[in-house]
């Protein structure tokens, strides 16, 4: 999910610190040793209950980690298993720090039913890759599904869940979203969708009502609505260009997803591999040209000085009614309500063409459950995943967090903030954002920001073609 892009740097700092401490063993394949238990538990950000401040105890911890790191390569696989008595300890890493409370409750309920399993929650997703490098990843993981997670799947990091009975309870069209990122050995189910986030244009219902504007279903109606607001002295769309990820998940994804078939485009682009040139029929230059003028038009509907406003500025301003619309996903809803309890919000999918039948919502599998392939606690992990996939747990989570349940026969959403997207989601008129198809090594967000400032479309598309080809070249070998 997009927000993780904002988080990478601070987390990554700790990532490097830990990789520097422990040189990666040279894994022939990704195998997990039972050995370095001494490191386990210290290596993550720690359970949620632990204080995150730097106390004397945490300093001692760090010292003992350094000591453990020094010992591990020598002692190798000598240490014993994790079980203390009959209790198995599972490490559960989930990717959304804002829902820690919900999962603490779920874990308490699960432990009450399963006294032989103890679950530790970790919400610092930035520790996942370092955990892999150390051959010590968590047992159960939730991740947002996009290119980066697809890469883990293709490298066989996750166990096959296709035989879990819970796998058949998932809506196949939503399971396909996960599978579209690749399947290990061509058929495995590496993750079960837990939560589907749908994004569109968040709008202020009061401002729409006050100016008699109905939810637009065509691009022309949309621009007409923007002109109405502008004529009334209201900023049509609040822009937060200083945070480039907001441009990527907003105007870039919404317009490209509405104008093009992104899944097909990236499918053929990936099939073409390193041969793609700007002139090729599969290139960005050949396909993305119709997207660009509409992006610039959206940018022109933003307030003056959007380039010095970031995501949190945008939340504060939009919640106070300083603009009619806001190109953000459902994750912005709770900060908006937190900033102004009175604000009445709705969401509609951006109509990127003049044919209402083309209008689609941007979705992403915001959380999908996986078990790491080489966990020594496979049986316990499967029991935990089975519990998490119970309809009561899944549906309650999604209802509470303005998301859509991926299960068959889930109750319809009632939250007025997202009901405008319900029709698109239930008819599977959705797409995964174009930005999520890019490998993280391409600084796409910066390129988009650069394009919005310079308005130089040729340079932008040529840069994307170049970057894509270079990454394909070096990952193909």
């Amino acid at each position, binding site marked *: 999910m997009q927000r993780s892009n904002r988080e*990478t*740097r601070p987390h*990554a700092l700790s*990532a*490097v610190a830990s*990789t*520097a*401490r422990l*040189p*990666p063993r040279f*894994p022939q*394949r*990704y195998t997990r040793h039972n050995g370095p238990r001494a490191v386990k538990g210290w290596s993550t950000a720690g359970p949620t209950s632990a204080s995150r401040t730097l106390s004397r105890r945490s300093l001692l911890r760090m010292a003992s980690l350094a000591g453990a790191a*020094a010992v591990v390569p020598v002692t190798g696989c000598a240490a014993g298993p994790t079980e203390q008595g009959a209790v198995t300890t599972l490490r559960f890493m989930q990717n959304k720090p804002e829902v820690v409370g919900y999962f603490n409750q779920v874990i308490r309920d699960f432990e009450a039913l399963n006294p032989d399993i103890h679950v530790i929650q970790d919400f610092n997703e*930035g520790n996942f*890759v370092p955990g*892999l*490098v150390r051959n010590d990843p968590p047992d159960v993981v939730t991740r947002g599904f996009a290119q*980066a997670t697809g*890469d*883990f799947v293709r*490298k*066989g*990091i996750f166990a096959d869940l296709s035989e879990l009975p819970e796998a058949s309870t998932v809506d196949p069209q939503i399971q396909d979203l996960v599978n579209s990122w690749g399947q290990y050995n061509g058929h495995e189910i590496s993750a079960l969708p837990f939560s589907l986030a749908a994004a569109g244009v968040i709008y202020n219902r009061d401002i729409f009502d006050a100016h008699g504007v109905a939810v637009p279903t065509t691009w022309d109606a949309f621009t007409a609505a923007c002109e109405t607001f502008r004529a009334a002295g209201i900023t049509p769309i609040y822009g937060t*260009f*200083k945070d*480039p990820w907001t441009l990527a998940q907003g105007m870039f994804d919404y317009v490209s997803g509405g104008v093009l078939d992104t899944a097909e485009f990236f499918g053929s682009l990936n099939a073409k591999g390193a041969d793609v040139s700007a002139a090729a029929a599969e290139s960005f230059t050949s396909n993305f040209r119709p997207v660009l003028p509409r992006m610039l038009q959206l940018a022109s509907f933003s307030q003056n*000085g959007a*380039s*010095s*406003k*970031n995501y949190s500025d945008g939340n504060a301003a939009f919640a106070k009614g300083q603009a009619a619309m806001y190109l953000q996903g459902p994750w912005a809803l709770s900060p908006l309500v937190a900033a102004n309890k009175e604000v009445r919000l709705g969401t509609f999918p951006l109509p990127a063409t003049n044919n209402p039948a083309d209008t689609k919502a941007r979705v992403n599998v915001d959380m999908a459950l996986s078990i790491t392939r080489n966990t020594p606690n496979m049986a316990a992990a499967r029991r935990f995943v089975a519990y998490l996939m119970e309809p009561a747990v899944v549906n309650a989570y999604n209802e509470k967090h303005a998301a859509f349940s991926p299960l068959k026969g889930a109750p319809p959403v009632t939250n007025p903030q997202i009901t405008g997207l319900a029709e698109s989601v239930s008819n599977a008129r959705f797409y995964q954002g174009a930005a999520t198809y890019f*490998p*993280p*090594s391409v*600084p796409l967000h*910066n*390129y988009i*920001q*650069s394009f919005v*400032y*310079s308005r130089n479309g040729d340079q932008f598309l040529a840069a994307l073609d*170049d*970057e894509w080809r*270079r*990454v394909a*070249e*070096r*990952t193909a*070998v």
Partner: protein
Amino acid sequence: MPTTIPGDPMTTSAAVASARAVPAATTTSAVTRAPRRIDPTYYWMVVPVLALFAFFITLPALVGVFFSLTNYAGYGDWKFIGFANYVNIFKDPAILQSYIFTFVFALTATVVVNVVALAIALGLNAKIKWRTGIRTVFFIPMVLSALVVSFVFNYLFSNTLPVLAERLGFTPLATSILANENLAWLAIVLVTVWQAAPGATIIYLAGLQSVPAEVYEAADLDGAGNFRQLLSLTLPLILGYLVINVILGFKGFLGTYEIIVGLTGGGPGMATQSVAMRIFSGFTGGDYSYQMANAVIYFLITLLISIIQLRLIQRRGVAL
């Protein structure tokens, strides 16, 4: 011509402390006095540190070099691909751009930091009122973390400054300079100078205090003016300190990272991506081996620059 820079050049505070105490002879007395029997204490001092250094720095660095020859993503399967990563780096204009940015930035920052720091040091070394208090004020930026400083400046540049500029009708600053692809790097230089100047100032102050007062008295008697004294006496006498500052500063600015993260995050667009940021992106981007190759190349370049600098210093008769 000053000949010896005392103290460990890696830590400025140590340099200052020893500069004040013993300006000349800090070469280990054991070597000069008893070359045959070496006190084992020295080994106790050196060997554990050497072992830690090898284990925590040299070994991981070698592992990194090893993986730069593979297509390892940081996890999962990998195989040897020879020098393909190195070849690809030279074909990557984005990497080249980050090198150009980093070197231009490091050169500019080094020059500005040293000019500012020397001016401050000269002022603080003069007999002015409230000297100790003013010195303390000037050293505060050194105590603050660079990341904190850059977040504060980020706010000033994005919110305070545009509002002020708009009130005063000064349009060039009415939009944040951090959002301007051509000017954002100047903001980074400004914050870097603000943060790095105190460290350089301390070294210059130490140098200024090592200049004996008699030479100025003699110059006064000879009728040399203040400016002439600065040019012909002070600067040559603290040349060694200037060299230290330039070398340490340049080396530090080549690795610039956290101030950019706090201010622009490498943007707007690709305008302020430093080499260190690109290398770092390999850890999160699944591009580990490629950026490791970048790191090896960058290491060789900085090594080359260091050797050239050392040669230049030795020719001037300054020993590190």
